[in-house]
């Protein structure tokens, strides 16, 4: 470049340049504001979501017992009674429910044949009243049923039944958190709590208190038709089982497929077709996977999966997230710098040694990121599991992968569609648990990812 370069007339200078620059800066500013507003909208939506959930999960309630515990036992503490005494209370108050209790707790045979099977088989292993072994549950008297329950169940189980079906605490009225807070503040300043005044007026026998619907009991109790005692234990266990099966299937298969496509497959039209189709599969609506899962796992392979079971559901969700894992893993493998591969080949590594020792560890953070996204999706899926046949009302813990199951999203869906208003509070509490579970899963994956990344950087 020589010094006597004379400026051409093409480039703006002086005032024109200043105007030009101001225009460019203004355009940048407009875009910047737009992005900032997008972020604000997203954050507001997120906060609104959280608040509406929390709003429903906590608040004042008025609760009234149908029968006070003090009428059942002196002092009102049910836990002081033994099993036969509790069974007697059940017999006196809800004789018609005894068959159901027996079926839910002691049955060794499937639900549909329980009432037709001799007790010797139907409740095998339980102590039976003399002479009833060959009769079925409908042939014996209510007293005999109570005797079976009293002799074979622990007091804690029976206390649950008595609390739920005899004492039957009903929430008569529930207020949301945002209605409760102003009332509590009023009380704090020495004024009468307006909600309490209202409650005493309407429900003089009721018990007025601030209730957190999310409690430890809520997490450890099984589902129920009574919102006050309903819990999510079964659904939570179901979700954990299903996600383990899903990841156990989709992670190795997905990463394996990605390794094949990225490292081994040659660039042929067939392989390109396969790759394109995997990308398309990632966009297929989840309900279609539900139908696929129903046809393959729940029906065709029912001998292996046991029909509508955890295994069928896990494999179905596995199929659903498989394309996402394959695509993300492939991207991660592709991003591994060729210098690492060359270095490994350069000291005499075979192809597999290079992939296993260098390429895969380097790609692992990216692969895990994809898996986080995929498993979060699987955790919240409802539609395909309804099709595959998740139950909504089961009261037994899933004990193996070929058990019937329900999962949190389906339990939440079921509760929100019930007529009693209190179930919305229960559903909100369950949503909080689902979100916490999601965060836990993501945190685990992020920690794993950071660990891999750290070990790569030293």
């Amino acid at each position: 470049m020589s010094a006597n370069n004379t400026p051409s007339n093409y480039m703006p200078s002086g005032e024109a340049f200043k105007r030009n620059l101001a225009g460019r800066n203004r355009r940048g500013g407009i875009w910047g504001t737009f992005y900032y507003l997008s972020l604000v909208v997203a954050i507001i939506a997120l906060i609104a979501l959280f608040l509406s959930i929390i709003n429903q999960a906590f608040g004042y309630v008025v609760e009234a017992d149908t029968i006070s515990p003090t009428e059942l036992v002196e002092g009102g503490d049910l836990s002081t009674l033994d099993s036969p005494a509790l069974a007697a209370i059940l017999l006196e108050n809800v004789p018609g429910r005894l068959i159901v209790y027996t079926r839910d707790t002691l049955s060794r045979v499937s639900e549909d044949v329980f009432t037709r099977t001799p007790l010797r088989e139907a409740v095998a292993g339980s102590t039976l009243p003399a002479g009833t072994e060959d009769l079925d549950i409908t042939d014996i008297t209510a007293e005999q049923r109570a005797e079976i329950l009293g002799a074979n169940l622990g007091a804690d189980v029976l206390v649950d039944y008595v609390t739920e079906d005899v004492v039957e605490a009903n929430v008569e009225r529930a207020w949301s958190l945002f209605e409760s807070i102003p009332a509590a503040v009023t009380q704090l300043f020495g004024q009468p709590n307006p909600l309490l005044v209202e409650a005493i007026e309407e429900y003089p026998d009721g018990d007025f208190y601030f209730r957190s619907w999310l409690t430890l009991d809520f997490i450890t109790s099984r589902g129920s038709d009574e919102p006050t005692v309903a819990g999510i234990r079964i659904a939570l266990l179901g979700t954990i089982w299903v996600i383990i099966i899903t990841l156990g299937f989709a992670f190795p298969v997905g990463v394996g497929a990605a390794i094949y496509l990225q490292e081994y497959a040659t660039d042929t039209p067939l392989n390109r077709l396969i790759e394109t189709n995997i990308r398309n599969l990632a966009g297929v609506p989840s309900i279609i996977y539900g139908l696929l899962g129903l046809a393959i796992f729940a029906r065709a392979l029912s001998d292996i999966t046991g029909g509508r079971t955890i295994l069928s559901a896990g494999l179905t969700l596995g199929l659903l997230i498989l394309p996402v894992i394959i695509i993300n893993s492939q991207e991660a493998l592709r991003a591994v710098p060729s210098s690492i591969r060359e270095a490994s080949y350069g000291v005499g590594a075979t192809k597999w040694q290079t992939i296993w020792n260098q390429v895969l560890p380097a790609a692992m953070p990216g692969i895990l990121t994809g898996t986080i996204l995929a498993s979060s999706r699987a955790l919240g899926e409802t539609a395909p599991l309804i099709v595959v046949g998740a139950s909504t009302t089961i009261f037994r813990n899933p004990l193996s992968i070929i058990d019937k199951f329900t999962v949190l999203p389906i339990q939440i869906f079921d509760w929100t569609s019930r007529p009693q208003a209190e179930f919305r509070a229960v559903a909100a509490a369950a949503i909080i648990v689902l979100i916490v579970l999601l965060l836990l899963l993501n945190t685990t994956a992020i920690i794993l990812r950071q660990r891999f990344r750290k070990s790569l950087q030293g």
Partner: protein
Amino acid sequence: MTQNGAYAIELKNVDIYYGPKLAVKDVNLSLQSRKITAFIGPSGCGKSTVLRSINRMNDLIPSARVEGQVTFHGQNLYDANIDPVEVRRRIGMVFQKPNPFPKSIYDNIAYGPRLLGVKGKSTLDEIVEKSLKSSFLWDEVKDDLKKSGLALSGGQQQRLCIARTIAVEPEVILMDEPCSALDPIATQAVEDLMKILVKQYTIIIVTHNMQQAQRVADYTAFYSIRKKEDVPGKENRWGVLGEFAPTDQLFSKPNSEETERYIRGEFG
């Protein structure tokens, strides 16, 4: 692979293609054991391509194809019964950009021996120490062998890569512009190292730096570019071996005018 033939490495009528494109044409070259040979020449003359054909690194590029013979002690490296994995273990390679594995210094060195099935901590310790001493890195890193290889300086990283190559006991070390990413002090250290390593190893180095070739190489091969004059564009250029001679001779009395112009720095 057996040990015979007068030269360590011989290239006979080697043509290299990338897909349909001819990259290097008709290279004939005989390299002696335990000497340093430098490949010099302008950009795009194919000197790196030739270097990478010697340990079959070009196999990693699906479209690359080598015709002719590359022999190692008389054995054609491109025979059907030769596994490229064995070739690369006997003919090691150091790359342009230092590329330690994202692992500890110790694991970087032990990686190759472990792949070959060497086991036992004391054996590996011995190999690591010996390799690091050979590359004059031992004194600098002996106290933190657990530190990541990536935490070292650029020059140390390159010497780590050399130590890693030495660890599997190759006979030949190929170096593809090993100093182009290093500062002058680190370059000096690598050059000093080469002069010591050549007592045990055959070294071939690609370099852009003619002074470096003069400082370290016993022999120098000059590559140049031929093109079809009537057809424009890069597709019609290929590299040829212009001149091969002892370094002193090539730089003082070049045979061709093209070599002379290149070493005078008239094109590059």
